[in-house]
């Protein structure tokens, strides 16, 4: 591939498709808005932790809220929403494998011991 073609791909790679051609994916105001949302979600997480009647649904609420924070940072601060899907694929491959491993270990150590597999 010629250097010109590569540079052209690089422009697309760095977000030239939608938010400017020199890797500037969004405006500073947009980043401040994302920062504000992350702050609010963190405050809600801590508030939920201290509300007694939410204790029974605490875990799912916290998992959803932290998943939202995780997604916001990855999509907008790490620019995966604008970058090449190859980067998303490489990251998600590691992330999915990591999630499977964690779930497998929890099942192995916390769920299976509750069953009499030899009986």
């Amino acid at each position, binding site marked *: 591939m010629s250097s010109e073609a590569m540079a052209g791909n690089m422009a697309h790679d760095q977000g030239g498709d939608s938010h400017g051609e020199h890797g500037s994916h969004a405006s500073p105001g947009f980043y401040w808005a994302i920062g504000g949302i992350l702050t609010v979600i963190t405050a809600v997480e801590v508030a939920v932790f201290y509300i007694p009647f939410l204790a029974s649904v605490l875990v799912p609420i916290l998992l959803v809220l932290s998943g939202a924070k995780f997604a916001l940072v990855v999509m907008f601060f790490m620019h995966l929403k604008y970058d090449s899907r190859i980067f998303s694929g490489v990251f998600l491959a590691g992330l999915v494998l990591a999630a499977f491993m*964690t779930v497998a270990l929890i099942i192995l150590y916390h769920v299976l011991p509750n069953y009499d597999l030899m009986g």
Partner: protein
Amino acid sequence: MSQAAATAHDDHHYTSTGLSSWKVGFWTFIGSECLFFATLISTYMVYKGRSITGPYPGEILDIPLTSVSTFVLLMSSLAMVLGLDGIQRGSKRLTLIWLGAVILLGATFLGFQVYEFNHFVHEGLTISTNVFGSSFFVLTGFHGAHVAGGVIWLSTLWILAARGKLTSADSLKVEIAGLYWHFVDIVWIVIFTLVYLIQ
């Protein structure tokens, strides 16, 4: 992309996909880091509630303090992306301000962690006290080491920028450092939820 910008990127290496090999390599590294931290988080989860002696998590973890340090790390991610925006705009002033803010906020987070570790040791929780202490200190200690590495990395970039040796043509270097910093941030998002809030 302008001809000048394209020329500025010519010193970078590209994969057969046309993507920067630096970014492909670094995203692969981040993918592997997901597995690294997953092993540590899994170990913590597996040993959760299995300590036969105290102190236990509910007795010792300080949620308000850690909420503040979590906020500090989240704001450092915001400063990081604003610093990248600054260097991509070619503004030395914005680059120095926001990269300096990331370094200060990262150092503040480390200060919180040192205080927390010191407090735990005084309360009788060390790495060898119980399985909670072992898995907690290894997990958060490795995360803290990653933060410390990021602070050192960003400090070198700040010095280069201050000397005028980091320009908009080098924005990929800041972008990759930013990817590392944001990754450290998302790892903390997971740790804060699973270790501190879900007890």
